């Protein structure tokens, strides 16, 4: 069976930059794919491309986005509008900026249902209350008449999720959905997303910079750096045996993963420099920051190779750390 969504060699171009280059991945029905990367990695632009909501200056210069047998890059605005909100929905990092501050949350949820499902005002309101209950908002009959500012950050994100799942989409794109939330609230919202994914048989593209979130919530992980996919793996493989020098650097730099490591034991492992160094780099975008770089790394962008089943890595010089004694891998 064809995957639900297939992205082939997607290249996004601005007049003077190429923020996403030759990106390919696919996602099956009901699966959670995490795209992880730091600012400037191109992960959010990729999400906007899937929704066909790229800023005007950005163009899809190459590639295809196939969803349910149709190439989204070839749809006109009207066809795309029909799909958006109904079959593909999206939630963003900061719910307050996506909600209309002068409209009750009931009307905002109802609007989607009126447009896509042609519900009447009364039926839409009833359904909005049901959806608020679905996303675990207490006293939904009362909350339905609240304005966004009357809700906490976690509640607002639940409302965004209610709007996104109102038409039971097949694909939900969640762009940093819990980054603005406190850690105890983050756990609640991620739980909710995962429950809805199962109940509604929905696939989720989870875009995040948080490796902990990736490890616990994703079925499959794509690591992006400066617009390129540098590694893809199942979460267990990625954390036990990261292959790309960038992924290794990230895991080593993260204090979260080193439970008993204290400053008195030594400094954190740094990735030197910043992502800005990838601009104008003809070869591997990570070369200027890589501690294993060789002369040939500046010649061309490395091809993705398949080092093991279900894995891809864009570095020809990587070797599994599992080949060396166990201790080295544990220290990551």
């Amino acid at each position, binding site marked *: 069976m064809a995957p639900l969504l297939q992205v082939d060699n997607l290249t996004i171009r601005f007049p003077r930059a190429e923020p996403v280059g030759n990106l390919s991945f696919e996602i099956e029905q009901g699966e959670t794919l995490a795209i992880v990367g730091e600012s400037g990695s191109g992960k959010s632009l990729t999400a906007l491309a899937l929704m066909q909501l790229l800023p005007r200056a950005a163009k899809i210069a190459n590639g295809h986005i196939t969803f349910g047998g149709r190439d989204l890059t070839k749809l006109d605005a009207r066809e795309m509008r029909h799909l958006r909100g109904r079959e593909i929905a999206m939630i963003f990092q900061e719910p307050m900026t996506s909600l209309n501050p002068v409209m009750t949350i009931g009307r905002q949820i109802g609007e989607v249902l009126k447009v896509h499902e042609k519900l009447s005002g009364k039926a839409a309101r009833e359904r909005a209350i049901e959806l608020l209950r679905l996303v675990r908002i207490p006293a939904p009959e009362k909350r339905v008449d609240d304005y966004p500012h009357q809700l906490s950050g976690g509640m607002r994100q639940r409302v965004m999720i209610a709007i996104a799942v109102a038409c039971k989409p097949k694909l939900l794109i969640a762009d940093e959905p819990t980054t603005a939330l406190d*850690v*105890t609230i983050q756990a609640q919202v991620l739980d909710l997303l995962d429950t809805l994914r199962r109940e509604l048989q929905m696939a989720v593209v989870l875009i995040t910079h948080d490796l902990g979130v990736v490890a616990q919530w994703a079925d499959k992980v794509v690591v992006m750096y400066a617009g390129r996919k540098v590694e893809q793996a199942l979460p267990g493989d990625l*954390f036990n045996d990261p292959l790309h020098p960038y992924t290794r650097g*990230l895991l080593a*730099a993260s204090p979260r993963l080193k*439970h008993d490591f204290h400053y008195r034991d030594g400094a*954190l492992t740094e990735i030197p420099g910043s992502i800005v160094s990838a601009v104008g780099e003809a070869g591997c975008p990570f070369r200027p920051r890589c501690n294993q770089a060789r002369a040939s790394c500046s010649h061309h962008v490395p091809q993705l190779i398949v080092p093991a089943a279900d894995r891809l890595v864009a570095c020809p010089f990587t070797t599994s750390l599992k080949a060396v004694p166990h201790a080295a891998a544990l220290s990551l």
Partner: protein
Amino acid sequence: MPLLSVSDLKTHYKSRDGLLRAVDGIDLVVERGETVGLVGESGCGKSTLGKTVLRLVDPTAGHIEFKGEDITVLDQRNLQRVRRSIQMIFQDPYASLNPRQTIGEILEAPLVVHKVGDRTERRQIIANIVAKVGLPAESINRYPHEFSGGQRQRIGIARALLLNPELIVCDEPVSALDLSIQAQILNLLLEMKKEFGLSYLFISHDLSVVRYFADRVMVMYLGRIVESADNATLWSDPRHPYTRALMEAVPDPSRPRQAAPLGGDLPSPSDIPSGCRFHTRCPLATDLCRADEPEFRAIAPGHQVACHFADRIN
């Protein structure tokens, strides 16, 4: 004598919803050379506490002693003298740097205000500090927008170090930075601590960062400290249910996923629950918790908890 000693500190604001009790009775000590981590979620009052320590916000009640001197009663002129020794680093360095000034001008301002040296000496001090924080020398002629987030935080650190402070309040100094840059900045803060003999009050919502960085940790909830212990003890033997929930909520690749440890939202600091302020979200709450606010008491040397049932939790 501790470097900083805060006793029964309260900072209340008047708001539309009534009295907002952001900091509501806090005792805190920072010893010389020590890093005290202050952990809590948004709205718990940790940033207000940081600002009150510098008297950027005036306390409603209580005392702040810096090297034995009560700074809550100082007038502006004397306060300026103390502020040479207590500096602050902010979360968003871009918001705290004037976009129209060059880095050289930004860094010269505190030296001028505190009448340090003549022009040439000031230039020398600035050049030294710029090199110390790992910025290129020509940075002083450039503007904040020309720098990346990590470099801007280096500028913020340089500014905090200029006047040779003894205590720096760091308010979420790495929260806005990418992971690969966070490690660079944390390492820089550690080097500076060693080199200048600094003490830090390190405010963060990120437990993993505090775990690495702090000597002692205080957990804050709705304006109060609920648990305080040295770093190793807090992580091996947390006794407050809130501390435990915070730890469990951090998604961790090395263990399987668990159900969200806490339901509900943080109550509003203008409507603090009766009894134990955590009882509305606590899985262990009883009638006692709803009625009586637990005392913040020592359960072992250096380990204090505000929970009626601290002895039964392990």
